[in-house]
């Protein structure tokens, strides 16, 4: 394969990086010849971060684990992974155990999952130190303190006696880093280490990472689905699709001049800056396994030609530092992606539909309020976005409006009438007006009900105007509107993908003919390419029917492109609430500014974060 050692200088294999060559992984349960990852090659060099990007199922995590020889009993790994001249994949488990934790480290996705909940964190740090470096006593303690300092945690002995449940998410991830870096490894593999963390925490940890990499000359593989984040911190970038690398090269080049249609689309979806135009999601779903006989993206590609479907496509060098797997890479430089104008809301925008009046929620035994004195209005056809980090109370506000929090304080008025706090006490018309769509498509639909059953419930309950013999056609109609095949009506949720399930949830909501749609992080559990489809759907359907939408999300970009008014929440209270465009271009509150700065946007290095953030991770929360 051409261009093997293109990153860094020639003859660098003596240096302690990782050279992965022709890595292939297949699950033993697959039919023979069916692979999950195929012929992957990349290099990790000291002092450089290699970002591996892709959506769920593309094989990036599988690659990361396989690259250090840690495949499981269910997988078959072939190829090689050279570290200091030795092929990791040929070593015995004992030999690998010598290297793991000492010279090669792995940081997994959720820190709280990689740290044992019943062992004090000090011991967790100490174990690899004792095992690999034989440290004990004073030297051990010194090293532990040193590590705490390195990850910017207070160097306090007390801290070492605490357990994981006594730390916040950000602190835990720092601790996980400390454990991984304890023996000063030369290679560090990170699998989505900041996913699930708040945006501000994520920014700080990414910065920390970069500092460590620079000072210690470590080679890093950073796996993530967040292209914007990777564009900020990685030096080299690889885009994975269906178990193969679609494009890779130096980050600046890949971001600045993307050549693979998938990369272009992904980049377009990762930057929601324009609220006037909508980039639709990529139609279809990615193939579940490696596709060998043609281009794996061909079926979803806008620029597909006959040659794409005829032969397998190889990685070719576009420049010395840029490889692409596409036969049309040369002629697609300024190719335009389809976008359509945002549908505008319809209806009288002066009429106030919903008034949220000083609602407060305090759970029994909780130290503080989850929601305090939150007020805002919703007009007919309006779109209000509520943003905030975890714990800000934004989802709780929606739950109160929906009647799921009976002990809330304050009032919610619908068209002037105060709503009873408990959904059971509300009249059918009231419930019909407010429909809720949830975050997690896995739990939002009853797994034992068929799609027809699921959709019939709101139909029977809220649409007595539709007689029994017309119900089937109503169902068919809504399935078409959410672009799902009518055959799915007889299927069960487990037969559908996440995006498809979410579409059923949306259909269920709209079927009731509501006036207000409450969306609770409806895209957070979905891949970027599917998110766009869902947003499109919500946009179109709400505009068509004049339905007002309250859209809760932690994703600023999404809210910015969708809502006309944005409400920013922190710790249960409203920080700022204005017209979206004004809020994002000239935020009046410092917290809003913090949030906006912390959100990774394509191609910018997060240098501004340093000055904007207070070092709040140094607070030791004792529970």
């Amino acid at each position, binding site marked *: 394969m051409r261009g093997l050692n293109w990153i860094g200088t020639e003859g660098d294999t003596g240096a302690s990086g990782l050279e992965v060559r022709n890595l292939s992984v297949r699950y033993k349960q697959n039919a023979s010849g069916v692979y999950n990852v195929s012929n992957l090659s990349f290099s990790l060099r000291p002092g450089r971060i290699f970002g591996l990007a892709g959506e769920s199922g593309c094989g990036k995590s599988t690659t990361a684990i396989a690259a250090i020889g840690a495949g499981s009993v269910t997988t078959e790994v072939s190829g090689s992974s050279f570290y200091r001249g030795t092929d990791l994949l040929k070593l015995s488990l004992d030999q690998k155990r010598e290297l793991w934790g000492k010279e090669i480290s792995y940081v997994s996705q959720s820190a709280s999952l990689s740290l044992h*909940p019943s*062992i004090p964190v000090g011991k967790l740090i100490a174990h*690899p130190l004792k095992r690999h470096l034989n440290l004990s006593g004073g030297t051990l303690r010194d090293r532990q303190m040193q590590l705490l300092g390195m990850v910017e945690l207070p160097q306090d002995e007390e801290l070492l006696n605490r357990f994981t449940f006594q730390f916040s998410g950000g602190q835990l991830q720092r601790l996980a880093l400390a454990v991984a870096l304890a023996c000063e490894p030369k290679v560090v593999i990170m699998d989505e280490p900041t996913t699930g963390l708040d945006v501000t925490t994520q920014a700080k940890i990414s910065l920390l990472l970069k500092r460590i990499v620079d000072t210690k000359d470590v080679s890093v593989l950073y796996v993530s689905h967040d292209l914007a984040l990777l564009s900020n911190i990685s030096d080299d970038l690889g885009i994975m699709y269906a178990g193969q690398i679609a494009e890779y090269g130096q980050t600046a080049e890949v971001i600045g001049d993307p050549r693979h249609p998938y990369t272009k689309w992904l980049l377009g979806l990762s930057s929601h800056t324009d609220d006037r135009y909508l980039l639709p999601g990529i139609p279809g779903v990615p193939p579940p396994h490696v596709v060998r006989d043609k281009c794996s993206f061909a079926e979803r590609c806008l620029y597909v030609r006959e040659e794409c479907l005829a032969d397998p496509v190889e990685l070719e060098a576009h420049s010395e530092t840029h490889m692409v797997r596409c036969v049309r890479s040369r002629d697609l430089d300024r190719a335009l992606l389809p976008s359509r104008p945002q549908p505008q809301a319809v209806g009288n925008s002066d009429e106030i539909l919903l008034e949220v009046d000083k609602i407060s929620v305090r759970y029994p035994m909780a130290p503080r309020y989850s929601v305090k004195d939150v007020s805002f209005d919703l007009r007919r056809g309006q779109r209000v976005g509520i943003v905030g980090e975890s714990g800000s109370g934004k989802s709780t506000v929606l739950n109160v409006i929906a009647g799921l929090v009976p002990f809330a304080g304050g009032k919610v008025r619908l068209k002037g009438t105060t709503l009873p706090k408990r959904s059971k006490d509300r009249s059918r018309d009231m419930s019909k007006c407010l429909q809720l769509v949830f975050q997690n498509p896995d739990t939002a639909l009853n797994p034992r009900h068929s799609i027809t059953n699921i959709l019939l419930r709101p139909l029977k309950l809220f649409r007595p105007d539709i007689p029994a013999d017309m119900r089937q056609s109503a169902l068919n109609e809504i399935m078409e509107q959410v672009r799902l095949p009518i055959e799915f009506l007889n299927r069960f949720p487990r037969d559908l993908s996440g995006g498809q399930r979410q579409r059923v949830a949306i259909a269920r909501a709209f079927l009731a003919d509501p006036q207000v749609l409450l969306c609770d992080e409806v895209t957070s559990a979905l891949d970027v390419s599917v998110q766009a489809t869902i947003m499109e759907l919500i946009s179109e359907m709400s505009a068509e029917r004049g339905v007002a939408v309250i859209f809760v999300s932690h994703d600023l970009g999404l809210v910015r492109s969708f809502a006309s008014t944005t409400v920013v929440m922190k710790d249960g209270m409203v920080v700022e609430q204005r017209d979206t465009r004004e809020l994002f271009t000239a935020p009046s509150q410092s917290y809003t500014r913090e949030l906006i700065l912390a959100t990774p946007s394509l191609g910018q290095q997060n240098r501004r974060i340093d000055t904007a953030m207070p070092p709040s991770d140094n607070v030791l929360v004792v529970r």
Partner: protein
Amino acid sequence: MVEVIAGHQADSRGRRIANTIFQRIVANAIVLLIISAVTFALMNFKAPEDLARSVLGREVSSEQIAAFVRSNNLDANFVERYLSWISGVFAGDLGTSLITRRAVSAVVSDAIGRSLTVAMLGAFLGVCSGVLAGVFLGVRVGSKTDIRMVTALLVIASMPEFLIGIALYMLFVTWLGWFPTQAAFAFSFGSASERAMNYILPAATIALLLLPHVARVTRVTMAEAIDAPYVVAAKLRGLSQVQTKWNYAFRSAAASLISVIGVNLVYAISGVVVVEYLFGFPGVGSLLVEAIGAGDSVTVQAVIMIFAIFVIIINVSVDIIIVILNPRLRYGT
């Protein structure tokens, strides 16, 4: 600078555990009281004459019944009888048997030592072998050894205890003749070593009773624990096989294991009853069965109370161990 929020930090670990234990003991004491009331009610709701009749038989005169009622204090009213009984229990006096007219406490204190020995021996053997077997299988789930052993365990687990006991009996007593047939005989007249032999089979039966259940649960929890992300992470840090298996995986398995072991031990208490009866072993278990058959309500009440106390001891011990193993519980989360 470290800023401390919320002030639970000051409480020492010891104090926390002591608090939890105290709470549990109080709760259990209340339960014990309720059990005593229910037991007493169940055993004594019949009219005193009926009680007399069930002990003495049908062919008795009314004078004999009256005499029986008087001598056993059955003519006092219900609440009085309960109170006098329960206060007697606290003082160590378990009443007088309706049949043998001996103090129940005397009979019980003889028997209880023996029963305890058998039970503890059997429990210790059963739990240890169960745990070891479970850990052994847990790390090899799906392998051939695993499947074969799991089937064997399943078969044993499906057996009623008396069948296991009978199987052992037939094998070792009838067929091989290693052990004496009449345990009670040995206790009254035999030497120390003869008496000791009599403990072995009942204890072994109890162990076999516990072994499959403990092994099965350990196996499942171990298999889950081995796959837990923080155990996999430990492996990826190069920590040794032993360290990963015991310090990481088993530690998290242990907490949920202990509750199940506790439940099984409680069940084993009732197993003791059957086993003793089967082997003719003179412990509290056979005492209970005889008493029920004979209609001796006083003895029945007493033995049930004793069993209840042991159940409580087991439950409280399990609670204590759980608190020690699970740091989260110490902080009142």
